């Protein structure tokens, strides 16, 4: 699968409170509405800026903090294509795969705001077409790729009846 879109840069330590600000707690039962506020905690005007398929590009430890799955869910629902970061917090990492949001761990210093990117999930390469650079990344563990390809963990379990870990 090859994803294409524009890069939106965020710094290190973007927490789930940045992705889904606590002040919208009461909207958690209304995910489409909540998605209109995606990443507002980090950049107030962000929801009005990006186009469908664009990428969130973070630094270290993206998604730290609360276990709220609403964070990756609204990134996906808002139409963003994937999150690229140098590293991810553990719970966010699982949650994103579980809801079918692709994550890429790579050297995001090689990406600037506005760069056009092509993310090849199978080959493990981010092509920065604005800069003619190729950034390699290690693919996810095979078991997690299976969950992602099935569309998320619930689809995975519905399809196979159990975890297909082997």
């Amino acid at each position: 699968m090859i994803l294409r879109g524009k890069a939106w840069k965020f710094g290190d330590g973007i927490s789930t409170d940045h992705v889904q600000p606590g002040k919208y707690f009461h909207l958690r039962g209304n995910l489409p509405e909540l998605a209109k506020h995606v990443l507002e905690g980090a950049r107030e005007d962000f929801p009005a800026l990006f186009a469908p398929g664009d990428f969130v590009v973070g630094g270290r430890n993206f998604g730290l903090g609360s276990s709220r799955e609403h964070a990756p869910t609204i990134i996906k629902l808002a139409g963003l294509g994937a999150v690229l970061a140098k590293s991810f917090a553990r719970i966010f990492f699982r949650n994103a795969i579980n809801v079918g949001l692709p994550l890429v761990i790579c050297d995001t210093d090689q990406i600037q705001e506005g760069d056009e990117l092509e993310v090849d999930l199978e080959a493990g390469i981010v092509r920065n077409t604005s800069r003619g650079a190729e950034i390699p990344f290690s693919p996810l563990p095979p078991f997690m790729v299976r969950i992602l390809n099935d569309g998320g963990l619930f689809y995975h379990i519905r399809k196979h009846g159990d975890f297909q870990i082997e």
Partner: protein
Amino acid sequence: MGKTIAEKILSEHSGKDVSAGDYVVVNLDFMYMPDTSSPLTIDLLREFKMDRAQYPERTVFMFDHCVPAPRMEMANWHKKVRQFAEQVGAKVHDVGDGILHQVAAESYIEPGWIVVGGDSHTCTGGAFGALATGMGSTDLGVAIAQGKTWMRVPETLKFQVGGEMPRGVYPKDLILYIIGQITADGATYHAMEFCGSTIETMDMEGRLTLCNMAVEAGAKFGIVASDEKTREFLRTHGREKAYREVRPDPDAVYEKTFEIEATTLTPVVSHPHQVDNVKSIEEVEGTSIDQVFVGSCTNGRAGDLRLVASILNGKKRHPHTRLVVIPASRRVYLECLEEGIIKALVQAGAAVNSPGCGPCAGIHLGILGENERCLSTTNRNFHGRMGDPSSFVYLASPATAAATALHGKITDPRKVL
């Protein structure tokens, strides 16, 4: 080759001889969720027609973040969860019972168990020599329906802490110090095992505080081996039969060992807006504070409130500094009522609310206004965590919180002890 506690428990539960780096599917001993993440879990279980609980007696829903319901939306979440729990036969701890991790510690978690919770601070339960970790709504949904989950066996970081902690220094200072040293992603995907003479003499309340904050260094588990202190806690909570010894093998392999000399520790404060932004009390002393909050799954236990009450003892909070106190559970609340702690706090000018999370997650019962500063005994100080995005949260021990409430500015607790 010897095993760490994480490797031992994951081997037992998967029926295989596993070590760090292996992937396993494990049966779960206990699954619990707060009122914030369970509504989404229930929607998903219904959508995928998996609305059942494999082990209803081990599945517990707790109402804690939004209690009593501050808004209609949340009242409706509660209705949904009560109805679902009844449908699948799961247990509910309703409004007023307390914060999920505290209730889990008091009434459920046993040494050697694998526990998953729909909240990041589920790692608190590792204080029993158990593996407890937080997950999102989907993982919990599948765990509830299937009674199992998958895990990667983590590498373990060992924190060997020796010596007596000086006056004015508490387990909260120790864990903040550690997080300041290894940073907010220093233990990502790892287990943190706390051991050494300081930990052996630390009571369960302190161990719960340590393990609670393991996730703030990115860890999957915070773990303390079980011992007589664990047994004693279980006994006083009517669960002595649950005791078993869980320790690492003497030749267990650790990725890294950190040695900490507790006698050299001092009170510290985590400065906004990152937990690992840890400074000595001297660096932040004198910062004026609008609100002090004492509570949460980190430091809302009876010992914490007792300490605060003993420092405030007959005095009044500073007129410019609000003091909000929330006992972590009904049991804590009752214990504090019986001992006169609540009365002392109210007389000192505290607003005491009924058990729950309250302002910790910025939902209600004491959220912050523009540019306000709060010194809090909680575990997170991210931008806007406790209210307005321009507000500031400083994390510290209950003693520092009490000293600060007295003086209206961040104060070294050693000056009031």
